[in-house]
């Protein structure tokens, strides 16, 4: 089973990359407010059990994929 992890800077955390991107989008003529830049991690898991998969990926996020002090995360499992 495949999982996708979306890691985002938490609200209130300065995100200079996001600021640079929104500024560039405005230069292109797009009317945009804030832009936040995060990270996407695709993980190929050895299990097909959804509960097991979710539990594993949650642990991965807590232990490595996100830094809980500055980042939040969302997990999407294959098949919705």
């Amino acid at each position, binding site marked *: 089973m495949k999982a996708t992890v979306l890691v985002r*800077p938490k609200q*209130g*955390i*300065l995100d*200079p*990359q996001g600021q*640079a991107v929104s500024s560039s989008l405005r230069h292109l003529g797009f009317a945009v407010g804030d832009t936040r830049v995060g990270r996407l991690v695709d993980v190929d898991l050895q299990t097909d059990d959804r509960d097991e998969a979710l539990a594993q990926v949650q642990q991965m996020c807590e232990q*490595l*994929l996100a*830094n809980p*002090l*500055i980042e939040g995360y969302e997990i999407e499992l294959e098949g919705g």
Partner: protein
Amino acid sequence: MNDGLPPPTIAVLVFPGSNDDRDAQLALERLGAEAPRVWHTEESLPRRTAAVVLPGGFSYGDYLRCGAIARFSPVLRAVTRFAAGGGLVLGICNGFQILTEAGLLPGALRPNASLSFVCRDVPLIIERTDTPFTTRCEPGQELSIPVKNGEGCWFADEELLAELETRGQIALRYAANPNGSVGDVAGVFNADGNVFGLMPHPEHAVDPLLGSTDGALLLGSLVDAARLSVAVPA
């Protein structure tokens, strides 16, 4: 400062991508320490290690987040045990990032507010002089030490920052903030005061030829403390 005591051993760790380990070694040796470089795959620290330095650089290519991968090195397990026993640990720049990722120091380091790599001397204010890392400094002394980083913006939420302020864990502040760090924080201690991390590079400020020798005040304090810890085993 020698008092006839043998030179203390201060281990300088080397990760794939470390690039300030030789400067750290040279600075510590000039200040009277023996400073063996220790490869990241080592399971233990050299015998009679009195202090450990994690140098600057780009360990493991700074993949994922700066310092996030290096904390899984075998040598970091040895450092974690060493710190838990009260051993002195200093993290400089990437070494600071590794120590925060490893949970040995509070806070996290984020991209500089300017998004630019900042490489210049910065003025710093010493917050504490009663720690093993700062005894050679005067209270409130201003130091000039270079920073060189892209991700030196230290972050702690309001609650954590207030706790650290109350407990005296803020070690150093920027007199002119180069990167957006909250509270102008340039360096912090752990709760027990035996682990210290900072973004500026004291090892690049030990020779008058390069402008400032203020880095020798911090590293020299560490050498003094390491020498004492050998003389009086815990």
